[in-house]
Each structure stands twice: as structure tokens, then as C-alpha cells.
């Protein structure tokens, strides 16, 4: 299967710190590809470069056959590449439905329309409600986003990413801060989504990663040290030393 997302020799420094170090990897269409690594491995920097929030110092990013390295952030989502945020980044003073409707609106042509009431436009509201139903938030649609719990915020994040009907999702730690019940729910949801989209998942929650991933890439100090199927990664000695070993020791 061809790579939907391909990264070649990507590099990014912040002053003396090398966040991304000559990175090569690819995500095949239809797979759920997890990226793991210890803190400071450069996972969030990678997502930021993939989504266009940061510009790499060198290297190229290809999506669906196109070189998107120089494409600005707002245009990437139009190409089918959507992202969720690790730290909740929502429109807290707007309603839950408004949040998702905005994500729909972003891809429903230009927004230089000054007269019609946007909250009554079925073209915007219907897909928004559908996305909310998919993540299980349809009952909360009219509440202000600030009234939701943290777990519901993560669900809303996902709904917004879905609302743009993307080909590929960049998920930055969707489980962050979730309790065991909420995590299980998120895993079930992601498993269902897997069938329809390509997903790049950055996560610390190893249970979720091993339950969902088709392939795993391990990042240490901005470099790929291993890529492969979950069972291969689990048994890879280098990876154990660098990362999983630490984790197991910490978990006791």
C-alpha cells in the first residue's frame, strides 16, 4: 500500500536543541500508525511540522503525492490533513455545536457571507451534529464548551477533527488526562474510526497504542530508532532500553 504521508530528512532545531533530527518515515493509507517515545523525543514538534504550525529547517513532507512542506497551516486541512491538539484548544466561549460547525464551515467554501444566520444553515449544522453523534456528545451540543469535562473536551477535539471530513488524522495524545473508563471509550471510538481514515497517533498510553496500532514508530531525541509491527517493537532490544524499559520500571 502506498504511503499517504511521507516525511523525508525532516530537521528542526530550537537554538541548541535538536527537536527533529533527519527524520524519515511514512504512514500507509488506511493504517493507524502510532508514534511513541520518551518525553522530549520531539513528538509534538513533529506533529506541529506536519500540521503546518511550525516550519521545518530542512526536509520535505509529502501528503497524497503532493509536497506540502511550504503549504500554510490553514490550507493543509483543506487538503485532507486534520489535527487534534494535546492541550485542549477549543473555542471555549462558544457552544459545543458552534465549535464543530466552525470546523465544517472551514471547508464549506469561503466565509465572506455577511447576511444569512450561520446557526440556521443546515449545510453547516447537520454535518456538525453528525460528528458530535459519532463521538457521543450529541446530548451536550448546546452547552458552552467551557461547561464540558476534560474527557468530553477530548471527545470534542476529535469531533472537530472529523468535521472536516479528512483523509488523515494527526492525533496528539488524545488520551491525555483521561481516566480508565474514558480511555477505554476513546480506544473503542478510535478503533471504529480506523476503518474509515488513516491515523497518525502520538500517545504515551501504551495499552491504547498496542491495542490500536497497525505499525509503531519509536522516536528518541528526534530520530527514528525503530519502525514496525507492534510485536516487533515490543521485542526490539534497542526500544526496550530506550523507552519501554523505563516505562516498565516506572510502572513497577
Amino acid at each position: 500500500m502506498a504511503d499517504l504521508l511521507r516525511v523525508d530528512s525532516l530537521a528542526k532545531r530550537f537554538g541548541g536543541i535538536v527537536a527533529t533530527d533527519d527524520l524519515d518515515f511514512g504512514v500507509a493509507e488506511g493504517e493507524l500508525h502510532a508514534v511513541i517515545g520518551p518525553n522530549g523525543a520531539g513528538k509534538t514538534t513533529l506533529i506541529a511540522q506536519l500540521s503546518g504550525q511550525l516550519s521545518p529547517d530542512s526536509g520535505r513532507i509529502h501528503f497524497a503525492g503532493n509536497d506540502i512542506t511550504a503549504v500554510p497551516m490553514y490550507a493543509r486541512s483543506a487538503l485532507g490533513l486534520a489535527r487534534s491538539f494535546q492541550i485542549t484548544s477549543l473555542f471555549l466561549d462558544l457552544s459545543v455545536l458552534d465549535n464543530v460547525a466552525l470546523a465544517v464551515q472551514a471547508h464549506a467554501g469561503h466565509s465572506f457571507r455577511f447576511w444569512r444566520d450561520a446557526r440556521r444553515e443546515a449545510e453547516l449544522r447537520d454535518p456538525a451534529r453528525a460528528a458530535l453523534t459519532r463521538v457521543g456528545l450529541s446530548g451536550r451540543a448546546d452547552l458552552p464548551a467551557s461547561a464540558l469535562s476534560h474527557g468530553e473536551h477530548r471527545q470534542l477535539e476529535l469531533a472537530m477533527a472529523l468535521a472536516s471530513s479528512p483523509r488523515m488524522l494527526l492525533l496528539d495524545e488524545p488520551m491525555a488526562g483521561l481516566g480508565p473508563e474514558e480511555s477505554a471509550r476513546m480506544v473503542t471510538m478510535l478503533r471504529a474510526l480506523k476503518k474509515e481514515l488513516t491515523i497518525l497517533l502520538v500517545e504515551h498510553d501504551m495499552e491504547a497504542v498496542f491495542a490500536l496500532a497497525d505499525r509503531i514508530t519509536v522516536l528518541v531525541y528526534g530520530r527514528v530508532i525503530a519502525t514496525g509491527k507492534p510485536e516487533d517493537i515490543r521485542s526490539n532490544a534497542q526500544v526496550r532500553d530506550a523507552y519501554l524499559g523505563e516505562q516498565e520500571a516506572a510502572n513497577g
Partner: protein
Amino acid sequence: MNGWFSVRNAAIVALLLALVLLPVYVEMGGSRFLLTLFTRILILAMAAVSLNLILGYGGMMSFGHAAYLGIGGYAVGMLAHEGIFSGFIQWPVALLASALFALVIGALSLRTRGVYFIMITLAFAQMAYYVVAGLARYGGDDGLTIYKRSQFVAPLDLSNKIQFYYICLALLFASIYLVWRIVNSRFGMAIQGARSNDTRMRAIGFPTYRYKLVCFIIAGTMCGLAGALLANHTDFVSPAMMYWTRSGDLIIMVVLGGMGSAFGPLVGAVALLVLEEVLSGITEYWQIILGPLLLLVVLFARGGIDGLLGKVRHRVSHG
């Protein structure tokens, strides 16, 4: 609107009725001064409504909005000075000049955020002030008298004070309605989203810069119209119209009335200007009271009068 009847809505309806009936009251023997005062209030309320669009809804803290009052006003003043009294020429020029200025200033300023944006808009407005004050031909520092108001076709006569009041009132209502429609449209949602979380807006696919710029231009143009009205009202224009403290007054009106509410700026304008009148009747040094009062509002009543009147519970509905 859900929850139709509330203290807040009743108060607003009462205010609107009072404004509509004011000239009738004046004709029946009320003080003529009230008409002058309230015409001024209506005009500045319109300026505040335009500021609310970018400040209350758009989150763009422009501290140079009074510049457009000056630009609109001087368009009328300068043309009148050159012998062109037709409103059909003056007013479009006022609008166009304001739009152009907003385009240039907005294009530059919107490259910055937060406090930088405040300072930049402030500085550019001051620049306009100094430029105009340096134009000796048009009165410079002393200002320019306007000997004839904008001429339209009969029966419209701007020098008729009552007619002029109703023209200002009509234009004010029109601008409130226009802002309300804009804010609830797709464009308005984009602007509100950008205010709420600009990074997220860009991440989901909105090129926020261009929407904010257009919003900025709309607001500036609307304020330019208010400026043209102001010039007609006072029969005089001076650089002081755009001094940065006037921009501060406009911000006070918006905040006092309640940001991001349709009628807030009107309430704020009424409150501020009536308060000024009342206080200056009590003491010559009324700003000594106004200053700390403003500070107290900022510290304790941030939602403005609109916030105080409405319920504290967050309402996620229209308007």
C-alpha cells in the same frame, strides 16, 4: 431569542422608546439642550457600535478608532471648505477615505497581536492626528468651521435639528442591525472563532488574517460615517476629534455597555455621556470621579451594564 422577557430586554426597549420619543418631549417644552446632547450620544453610539464589532466580537483591541471619526469628519469639512457641499459627494468620500485608511492600518497592525496591536493602532491614529494638525490650509490645530451642512435633496434638511436627530437615530438603528446580522453570519462566526482561539481557527482551515482585515475595514467605514455625522452636528471639525483619548472614550463606552452585545455600545454611550453631564454639573473636576469609576468597572463589573442587567448564568444564544 429565548427568554424574551427579562429585565435586560425591558430596559433596552424602554431606552429605545425614550430615544424615539425624545424630540416629541423637547417640542412639548423640554429643554432644547437635551436634543443636542442626545444627537451627540446617538452619533458616538454609532461609533461605539462599529468599535464593538472589532473589539467585542472580534477581540481586536484597537486604540485608534477615533481616527475614523476624524477622517469622516474632515472629508466633509475639507470638501465644504473647498465649496463642495453636496452630501452625495461628501459622504461617499468620507466612507471611501475611512475604508482606505482602515485597509492600510489594518493590513499593517493585524500582523501583530495583543498589546503590540493596541500600541500600533494607537500610534497610527496619533499619526493621523499630527498629519491633520499640520495642515494649515484646513485650520491645523484650531480646526475648521463648516458653514453649510451636507446638502441632499429636499425634503432632507440636515440643519433642521429634529430631522437631523431622526436621521442619526435611523442610521444608528441600521448600524446596530447590520452588525447583528454580520456577527451571526458565517463571516461573524469566523471572526468570533478568531477571537476565541486564533490558532485553532487556522488549524481547522481559516485564513484568519483576511477575515479580521475585512472586519476592521467594515468597522472603520461605519465609524467614518459617524464622523461625517459628527461634523454636521458640531458644524466644526478639529484634530482633537481623533486624539487618542477620544479612542479611549469609545472603548469605555463599549466596555461600560457590555462587550459583544448588540445594544451594549448604545447603553454605554448613553451612560458615559449622561454621566459626564451629570458629574460636570456637580463639580468642575468631574474626571477625578470618572477615572476611578472606570477603574472600578474594570475591576468589578467587567461585563458592563449588560452583564449586570442580564443573568450571571452564561447564555449561549443569539444577541
